[in-house]
C-alpha cells in the first residue's frame, strides 16, 4: 500500500478520495431520481431540481415537479441514508463481536426496533415519526441488551453472540406478531406487514431530516473510532492492551449502531442483507482496515439501497415489490459469491 509521507499529502489524499466518494453518491442519487415507473427526461429532472434548490424558475409540468421533488428525491435520499447506516452497523458489529455473520438483522437489533415501532404505532404511545423512532430505539436497545446478556451468560464467545441473536430475533419477531394479532385491525395489520418487509413508498421530506443526520452522525462516530475497531481484530483483551478504552468504545459504537438501526427500521421497515453483505463486499474491495472500510461500506451501502429501491419500483410495472425482497434476491447470491471468492483468494 502506498502511503502519503507528509501531513499535507495525507490531507490532499483524504480530500481527493472524499470528493470522489461524494461524486459517486451524487451520481447515484441523480440516477435514483431519474429512474422510476414513469421515466422522466433528464431536462425535466434538472429543471425541477433547479427550481426547488435555487428558484431557477424554469418551466416544468407541476405534476412532474411534484413527483420529482416531493416523492423521488426524499425517497432516494432516505434510501442512501438507510443503506449507509445499515452497512455501517454491520461493519461495527462484525468488528466488535468478531463474527463475520454479525449484523443488525441477525443480532436481533432490527427485530427489537420493529417491535418497538409496532408497539408505538398500534398502542398510540407518543406520536408521529419521532414517537415511532423513539419506540424503535428503545426496542432495539432492549433487544441488544438482552442478546448481549444472554451471550455473556452462555460464555461470552463470538459464536454465543450470534446464537443469542437468533434467539433474540425470534423472541422479538414473535412479540411483534403478538402485538399485531392482539391490537391491530385487519387494515392496520396489512399495512404493518408490508412495512415490515421494507418499504420506501411512504417516505417524504420529514423522513429525510431524520435519516440523513443520523447516517452522517453515525458515519463520523464510526470513522473517529476506525483505529479502535482495527485494534479489536485480536479480541477485546488485545484491544485493551493496545490502549483502547474497551468499555467506552463499545458503549459509544453500540449506541451509534442502535440509533442507526432503529432510525432506519422506523422509517422504512426492516431490510435484511444490507448490514451483512455490504461490509463483506467492501472488505473484499478495500481490505479489512477500518480507515478505508468505513467510508467504502457507507458508500457501497448507500448506492446499493438506491439501486435496490429503483429495482423494487421497476421490477413489476404498476406494483411495488418490498425492497427487503430485492435486497435478499441480490444479497443472497452476492454473499455466496463473496464466500467462494474469499476462500479462493485466502
Amino acid at each position, binding site marked *: 500500500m502506498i502511503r502519503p509521507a507528509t501531513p499535507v499529502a495525507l490531507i490532499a489524499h483524504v480530500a481527493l478520495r472524499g470528493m470522489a466518494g461524494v461524486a459517486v453518491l451524487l451520481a447515484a442519487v441523480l440516477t435514483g431520481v431519474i429512474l422510476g415507473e414513469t421515466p422522466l427526461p433528464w431536462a425535466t429532472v434538472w429543471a425541477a431540481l433547479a427550481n426547488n434548490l435555487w428558484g431557477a424558475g424554469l418551466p416544468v409540468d407541476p405534476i412532474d415537479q411534484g413527483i420529482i421533488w416531493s416523492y423521488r428525491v426524499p425517497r432516494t435520499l432516505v434510501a442512501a441514508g438507510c443503506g449507509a447506516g445499515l452497512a455501517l452497523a454491520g461493519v461495527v458489529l462484525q468488528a466488535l463481536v468478531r463474527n463475520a455473520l454479525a449484523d443488525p438483522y441477525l443480532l436481533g437489533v432490527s427485530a427489537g426496533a420493529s417491535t418497538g415501532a409496532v408497539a408505538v404505532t398500534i398502542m398510540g404511545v407518543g406520536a408521529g415519526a419521532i414517537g415511532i423512532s423513539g419506540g424503535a430505539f428503545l426496542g432495539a436497545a432492549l433487544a441488544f441488551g438482552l442478546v448481549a446478556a444472554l451471550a455473556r451468560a452462555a460464555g461470552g464467545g463470538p459464536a454465543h453472540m450470534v446464537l443469542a441473536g437468533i434467539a433474540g430475533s425470534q423472541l422479538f419477531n414473535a412479540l411483534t406478531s403478538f402485538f399485531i394479532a392482539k391490537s391491530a385491525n385487519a387494515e392496520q395489520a396489512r399495512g404493518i406487514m408490508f412495512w415490515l418487509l421494507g418499504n420506501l413508498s411512504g417516505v417524504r421530506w420529514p423522513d429525510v431530516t431524520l435519516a440523513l443526520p443520523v447516517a452522517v452522525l453515525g458515519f463520523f462516530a464510526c470513522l473517529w473510532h476506525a483505529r479502535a475497531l482495527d485494534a479489536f481484530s485480536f479480541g477485546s483483551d488485545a484491544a485493551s492492551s*493496545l490502549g*483502547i478504552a474497551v468499555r467506552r468504545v463499545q458503549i459509544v459504537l453500540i449506541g451509534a449502531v442502535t440509533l442507526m438501526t432503529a432510525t432506519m427500521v422506523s422509517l422504512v421497515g426492516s431490510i435484511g442483507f444490507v448490514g451483512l453483505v455490504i461490509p463483506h463486499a467492501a472488505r473484499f474491495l478495500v481490505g479489512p482496515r477500518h480507515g478505508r472500510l468505513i467510508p467504502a461500506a457507507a458508500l457501497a451501502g448507500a448506492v446499493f439501497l438506491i439501486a435496490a429501491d429503483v429495482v423494487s419500483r421497476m421490477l413489476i410495472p404498476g406494483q411495488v415489490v418490498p425492497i427487503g425482497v430485492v435486497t435478499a434476491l441480490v444479497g443472497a447470491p452476492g454473499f455466496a459469491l463473496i464466500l467462494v471468492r474469499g476462500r479462493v483468494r485466502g
Partner: protein
Amino acid sequence: MRIRAEGLGWSARGRAIVEGITLEVASGETLGLIGPNGSGKSTLLKLFAGIAARARGSVSLDGTTLSGMSRRDIARRIAFVEQQAQTAEALSVRDAVELGRTPWLSPLAPFGAEDAAICQEALARVGMEAMANRSWTTLSGGERQRVHIARALAQRPQVMLLDEPTNHLDIHHQLSLLRLVSELPVTVVIALHDLNQALGCDRLAVMEGGRLAALGPPREVLTPERLARIFRVGARVLTDPADGATQFRFHCLEDQP
C-alpha cells in the same frame, strides 16, 4: 521502568485462581515466570497488564498505580503478548504489526513516516520483513508468534509481558527470541515452560496453585526438591565442559536413573 505488584489476586466462579502476589521487577530486569499448567501464569500476566476485570490488589509503574492511568498511557508503557490471540480478518503481517502503534496515534495524529519506520524495524527484528505482505491466515503458528512479538516491539514499550512466546517457534527462533528479549533495554516478565531456557533469566518466580512458591535467582530457586515437588520431575545438573555452563537433565520421578 520498575513494575510492582501488591497483593494481586483474581477469582473465577468463587475460586481463587491467583492469590496474594506481591513482587517487584527492577528496571531492565528479566523475570521468568514458571510453574505447571494451570498454576496461574497467564492470569498473573493479565493482572500485570491491568486487563483482567474484577482484579484484587494493585500494579504500579515507577510508583504510579495503573488504576490511576488511562488505557492509552498504560499501553505506551506496557506491551503484552498473549498466549493465544487469533483473528479471522484478512490482515496482512504489516497491518498486524501496525496495530502496535495504536496507543501513539489518534484521529488527529495519524500514522506517519516515523511510525512506518518503527514498524519496519520491528519486522526486521523478528526476521519477518520478507513476509510483510503475507496474509495472517496463511502464517504458521511460529510466524504468527513472531508477528505478535513485532507488534509488541512496535509499541515501543518500557515493560514487556510475554506469555510463553517460544511456543510454536523452531529452535533457531526460540534462541533468537530469548536473545532479543535479553538485549532489549526494557523490563521483561516472561512465562516459560522450558526450565533450561528459564535459567537465562535474571530471576525466576515459581507459581504453584495460583500462589508464589519461590522467587529468586534461577539456580537458587530451581532446587531438585522444588522441581520434584512442584514440577513432579527428577533433575540432575550437567555441566558443559566447553564453558562450564550448566543444564538440567530431567527424568520421571518413578524411574530413578
